[in-house]
């Protein structure tokens, strides 16, 4: 699947919508980033990722250690890489929002719930997990991640600070 970057510029900020797959075809020019103080990546439409894409991503962002990087709407496959691969989220990076999968044992339904910085979690490593996620039968759904692993990046940022 070809990856796609839709880039919008506002003053010194670049808003980059990423879609498709972050893979070996990823074509990221560092020229695009020159002069930007803030890079906001929106991952809402990302469908896949592979190890080569991860490598290219890290290499692409590494020449800009002082640029503020923001990740928005991260699906689970992106959160996994943030937690597991050093450098996937740069040291200056911040996750503004990410999706948390929920699962209903009763119906087998799945739901992606968006956690947003300042609401469901904060810069101090605290989590405020919403209580009322329900399935179509109004039965409570459970968070479908290993919490100690999935939310690691929130605590990690706090430790680093």
């Amino acid at each position, binding site marked *: 699947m070809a990856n796609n970057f839709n880039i919008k510029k506002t003053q010194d900020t670049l808003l980059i919508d990423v879609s498709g797959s972050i893979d070996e*075809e990823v074509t990221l020019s560092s020229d695009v980033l020159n002069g930007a103080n803030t890079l906001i990546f929106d991952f809402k439409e990302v469908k896949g990722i592979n190890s080569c894409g991860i490598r290219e991503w890290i290499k692409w962002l590494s020449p800009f250690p002082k640029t503020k990087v923001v990740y928005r709407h991260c699906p689970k496959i992106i959160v996994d890489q943030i937690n597991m691969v050093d450098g996937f989220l740069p040291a200056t990076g911040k996750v503004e929002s990410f999706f948390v999968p929920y699962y209903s044992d009763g119906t087998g339904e799945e739901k992606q719930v968006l956690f947003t910085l300042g609401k469901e979690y904060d810069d101090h490593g605290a989590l405020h997990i919403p209580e009322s996620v329900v399935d179509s039968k109004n039965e409570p759904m459970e968070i479908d991640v290993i919490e100690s692993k999935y939310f690691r990046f929130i605590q990690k940022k706090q430790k680093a600070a």
Partner: protein
Amino acid sequence: MSAPKLFEFMDSFSSFDVTEYRQGKIIYSDPEKTVLHSSQWAEGQILELATRGPFNTFLNSNNRNFLEELLVALKVKSDPEGFLANPLLALYEEKPKSVNLTFSLAKEKDLILNKLEPFFAAAESATISDHMRIAFEELFMNAVYDAPQEAIKMGLEKSTKTSEIIAAYDQHKATITCIDAYGSLHIPKIIQRMRDIELSGTKNIINLGDKPGGAGIGCSLLHRYSTGITIAVKKGEATLVSCTFPLRTSYKQFCAIGKNLQFLNIPPTGGRNGK
């Protein structure tokens, strides 16, 4: 699996040792004919044992399809050539729904991905579908980029060869299998890398060099996102990597299933080369 069927298959594999792993107390005659199993493997322990040797087949007996997976492991061990020629015969008891797609160039990926989408959807779980997609991404990239590069490094053939992706599922599981005709995968290196990443993370492993190809963490992605990996390598002729996924499973259930791992080197014969 029914009891009569179980007895029938255990009978046909009586020359193999199916041995429960207990720390320091493994009784076996021939590691090639031994299947180690346990319901107590700690995270990463299988990779640690695989790195240490001499065993090559590790099954989690807390896996809800343990007997089925044991049968798969024994079929693979008893007929590695047959497994390479037709992996679905070993991977499934009955004929699964399947698709067999050949490719040789990177630009063919989108087409293949489109044909695989119904197989990803068969997982009936968005999480597991994502896992299958990642496994495909990794296997495809390995076949198109890494395998030919490794073949050149090893002094094997330089020409571009055709590879296959075989996706399949039945009522219990799905599999994504990739077979390339290079046979350049170095099993000990891959197992060691999977083990190192599992125990120490990616920091000292990831390859950020300028060479094209993988970052050295692809094997870890396969391990992380599947419940079982089977690898068979016939040097210079074929590499087969097959990943297994559960169906209708939440991520927490997926994590509780436990991993299986099997790998084997098959002596070269000149069979599949040049396909």
